[in-house]
């Protein structure tokens, strides 16, 4: 029963990884841009929420709502004010600029909040669980995080598939110039894509911060897990990203159980490398050419 328990923990953890990865996948899908500051922006959101809780004295729930709105706006302004200018000429420019951004965010957080570990306290929800049978119980909080991940991915999929704006996202992704000819302002679309990506990663960052302690250097790890989830799932498929996240989560928890704590991360990376070697385009690669 231990192993079942461990696998379930892994699946639930995978939901959080997928949530971190969704924004990364969206931004890459719409504008072919790799955002190396993605993980740090999620951790930044956790600190913003912490700051709001401490300074305004509101609960974590309200702080989350405010933070998500703030990160949405930050995303739009960041894209239109800075990142749009890095696009086009060559692929390395956005990588260099977002790498720089990642360093600035990390060090800014260390200056402001120190390098100490922090926690966000969401109250009793963190400690209650549902009992499946004598040996197996699932924490409410990890379950809630998993459900939130699925809801976000399903919502994003609906948005992309069914709405006028979602269609414009896909058209811009297919052919930016042809989309311009349809009256679509690609700079605005890119701004919105980054805004949505940061709103989602803000949620992920806050959910992570409630689950464990966090500090300013965590962003880099989050970025790597997110990359692994996206690549295993297959570029361009949101549900693939969820599966990728779950595979990563299960590999890590099973690895820890089998070889001892600390080995889990290594097993996660090894599984990722194996998938990359056997199926380089991921589980659900979706690429279409004219």
């Amino acid at each position, binding site marked *: 029963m231990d192993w079942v328990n461990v696998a379930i923990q892994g699946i639930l953890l995978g939901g959080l990884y997928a949530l971190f990865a969704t924004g990364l996948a969206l931004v890459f899908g719409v504008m072919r841009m790799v955002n190396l500051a993605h993980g740090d922006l999620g951790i930044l959101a956790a600190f913003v929420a912490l700051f709001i809780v401490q300074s305004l004295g509101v609960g974590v729930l309200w702080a989350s709502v405010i933070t998500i709105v703030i990160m949405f706006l930050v995303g739009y302004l960041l894209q239109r004010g800075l990142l749009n200018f890095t696009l086009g000429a060559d692929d390395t420019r956005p990588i260099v600029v977002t790498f720089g951004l990642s360093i600035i965010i990390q060090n800014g957080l260390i200056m402001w909040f120190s390098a100490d570990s922090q926690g966000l306290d969401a109250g009793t929800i963190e400690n209650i669980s549902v009992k499946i049978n004598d040996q197996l119980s699932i924490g409410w909080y990890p379950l809630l995080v998993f459900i939130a991940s699925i809801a976000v991915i399903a919502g994003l999929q609906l948005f992309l598939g069914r709405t*006028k704006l979602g269609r414009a996202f896909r*058209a811009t992704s*297919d052919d930016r110039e*042809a*989309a311009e000819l*349809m*009256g*679509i*302002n690609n700079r605005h679309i890119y701004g919105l894509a980054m805004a949505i990506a940061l709103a989602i990663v803000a949620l992920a960052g806050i959910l992570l911060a409630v689950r464990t302690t966090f500090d300013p250097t965590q962003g880099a790890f989050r970025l790597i897990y997110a990359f692994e989830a996206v690549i295993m799932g297959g570029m361009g498929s949101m549900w693939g990203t969820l599966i990728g996240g779950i595979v990563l989560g299960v590999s890590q928890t099973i690895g820890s159980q089998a070889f001892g704590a600390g080995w889990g991360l290594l097993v996660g990376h090894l599984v990722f490398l194996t998938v990359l070697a056997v199926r380089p385009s991921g589980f659900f690669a979706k690429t*279409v050419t004219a």
Partner: protein
Amino acid sequence: MSVLEIQDVDVFYGDFQALFKVSFTVEEGQTFACIGANGGGKSTLLRTVAGLQRPRSGTVLFQGKPVDQISAHDRVKLGIALVPEGRRVFPSLSVYENLQIGAYGGRKGDWSIESVMELFPLLKPLSKRQASSLSGGEQQALAIGRALMSNPTLLLLDEVSLGLAPVVIKRIYEAMVHLVGIGTTIVVVEQDVQHVLTVADHVACFLEGRISLEGKPSDLSSEAITAAYFGM
């Protein structure tokens, strides 16, 4: 009033000059054909009118107003639609979605998905298909239909017959005649001179970035056109 007026337009790609002081006027309801060999600057001209390319000097006037400062996505809302070379349909979107995207700018007019499918009945059964799975001719019909969905005053067609079967070309030219009949102003770029002269009421021949000959097809001898085409 003229729909389109090009005044002394110079266009560059980096250091390479593609158009040299090009000027001409397109009147309302006219079908204006740009012919000429490859590299003559015809496509560059259409891209400049659509706003994808900016002239280094000179002015483009649409319905009497300069549009040089207006971006491509806003020109669609004024009523300029370009069917780009190579069709450029959105491959991952369905035929229906491609047409929906055509109406993104929200310009009012008579065109609807139904009327586009009436003009190109071959699109009807393909509605749910992914555009990437269409044949070249089907994609061309879709690209024109998509442009019509923006209810253009001025329709720019770039190389519409390139690489298509004669029967498909015939159908596209029939559609063009229909569009002219309902008052659409068209600028068409073509390499197939014989075909385009059957629908055009004004023709300009481009040679190395300049207009080498211009006039009504009925006034121009085929020798003169050949000479202008090849620069002899």
